[in-house]
């Protein structure tokens, strides 16, 4: 059984029909990626899963429980954590305080401390800057902080929204290798990316979205090799 099963959801922004019957399945331990052009509905799908948006129809099953329309904080409690697009760190708080807020729903002080050490181990650059205000970090560091912050809630599945946005190619590589690392230590990942090439290189499974519909899906390696995808998304 799939860990997360998005089943035929329809989402509207006012009168605009943004998601037209999207279905996505994520199995435990996988990296699944949603790719597609601007406005395809990738971020909307993520935001619906994490409860920031409510679907008009359709189900979102997480470990056998329908979470469609649940309040965001309850969804986080179940173990779904989102790294929002554009990072959105708390600019006027220190790195440490940002991470603390990631563990907002937990009260096991000792383990929070251990997880914080784990995050600092994974992102040594954050450890160096733990007292610094998040707004003064570079873009890449902010992305790391946003990811570290999401990890602090001990998610069973991590939703990543465009982690490569606005970052230099070298940093993009670093971020993706960290994503792979996080996955290898047992966290399932649902990744939204415009950088299809990078996303397909680390994912197990991929869905291609276009104007609110899934137009293609399958094994990431196969999709990366397919002529159609290469033409449309990988630049020849």
């Amino acid at each position: 059984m799939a860990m997360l099963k998005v089943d035929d959801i329809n989402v509207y922004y006012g009168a605009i029909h943004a998601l037209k019957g999207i279905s996505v399945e994520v199995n435990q331990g996988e990296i699944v990626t949603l790719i597609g052009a601007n406005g395809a509905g990738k971020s909307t799908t993520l935001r619906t899963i994490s409860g920031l948006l409510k679907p008009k129809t359709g189900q979102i099953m997480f470990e056998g429980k329908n979470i469609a329309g649940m309040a965001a904080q309850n969804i986080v409690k179940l173990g779904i954590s989102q790294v929002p697009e554009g990072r959105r760190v708390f600019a006027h708080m220190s790195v440490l305080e940002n991470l603390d807020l990631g563990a907002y729903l937990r009260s096991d002080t000792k383990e929070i401390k251990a997880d914080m050490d784990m995050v600092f181990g994974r992102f040594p650059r954050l450890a160096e800057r733990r007292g610094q205000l998040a707004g003064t970090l570079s873009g890449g560091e902010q992305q790391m902080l946003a990811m570290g912050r999401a990890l602090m809630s001990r998610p069973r599945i991590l939703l990543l929204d465009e982690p490569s946005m606005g970052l230099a190619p070298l940093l993009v590589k670093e971020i993706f290798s960290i994503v792979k690392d996080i996955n290898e230590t047992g966290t399932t990942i649902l990744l939204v990316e415009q950088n299809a090439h990078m996303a397909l290189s680390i994912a197990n499974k991929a869905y291609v979205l276009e104007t609110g519909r899934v137009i293609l899906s399958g094994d990431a390696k196969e999709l990366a090799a397919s002529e159609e995808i290469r033409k449309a998304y990988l630049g020849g």
Partner: protein
Amino acid sequence: MKLLQKTKSDIMALVACLAVYAIIQTLILTDVIGPFWQLNIVLIGINIILVVSLNLINGFTGQFSIGHAGFMAIGAYVSAVLTVKFQLPFIAAIAGGALGAGALGFAIGLPTLRLNGDYLAIATLGLGEIIRITILNISYVGGASGFMGIPRYTDFTWMFAFTVFTVFVIKNFIDSTHGRACISVRENEIAAEAMGVDTTKYKVLAFTIGAAFAGVAGSLFSHYFYIAHPASFTFMKSFDILTMVVLGGLGSISGSITAAVLLTFVSAALASYPEWRMIIYSLMLIILMLYRPQGLFGNKELSLKMLSRWTGGKKHGSTQGN
């Protein structure tokens, strides 16, 4: 170690409070401070309560509310009704005033806090006026001529105790997990929600607490001036409070206290030059906003470390970015 430091600074704060209280109370008892300045000292305390409580809403939670005078009015009238019509003791009346204002803050906050920015400001401005005009039309509390015959229960001791209490409660709230959640709402609402912070709950909670303390201030106010009058609670009063919040620094309690003391003091000191008063007052605000747009304290708190930095002369690089 950290805990020890905290206890130490708590004790020092307590000692400082007692010392300030003892000095001013002695000066009042020995008539060194005359009635005019006594009145203004009480006003300073009431203003501190108003400014710190509004700062919780505007500065820490980032919800731009400008209807604080309305909640103050609720406190003033509810407590007056309780002491005059029901002969309840003052402390019960204050609690009643706070409860009334807090309940109304909750009822109003629930629907309006879905708005943000300018829209919330306009809505709260309107609500403040609605409260005032409703009171104006209730003859049970005196209508347009005001609620008269309120006993003077407030004195320096009451005022001081409640000011310290307000600052203590709000400061502790901000330093708690709940306070951190409120600040995260101000910093980035979407990220806060994605972290599992129930943003609506915290906005309403901050609004309710802020309103309740405005009610406390209102209760102290009406029981000092013998009268509660709708004209004392116009939107100009809300703006006065807001001015002090912004001047002291959004998100700084020590800034709020300093601004409340400073502006009330300046306003009182200029009372004998009525024709110059508003000009000097306005000029001061303009100059301060030109040179300290983030307010006197920004979002920092006054601390011993900060003091020693000033006096020690060793300048640290500012980490304030962007």
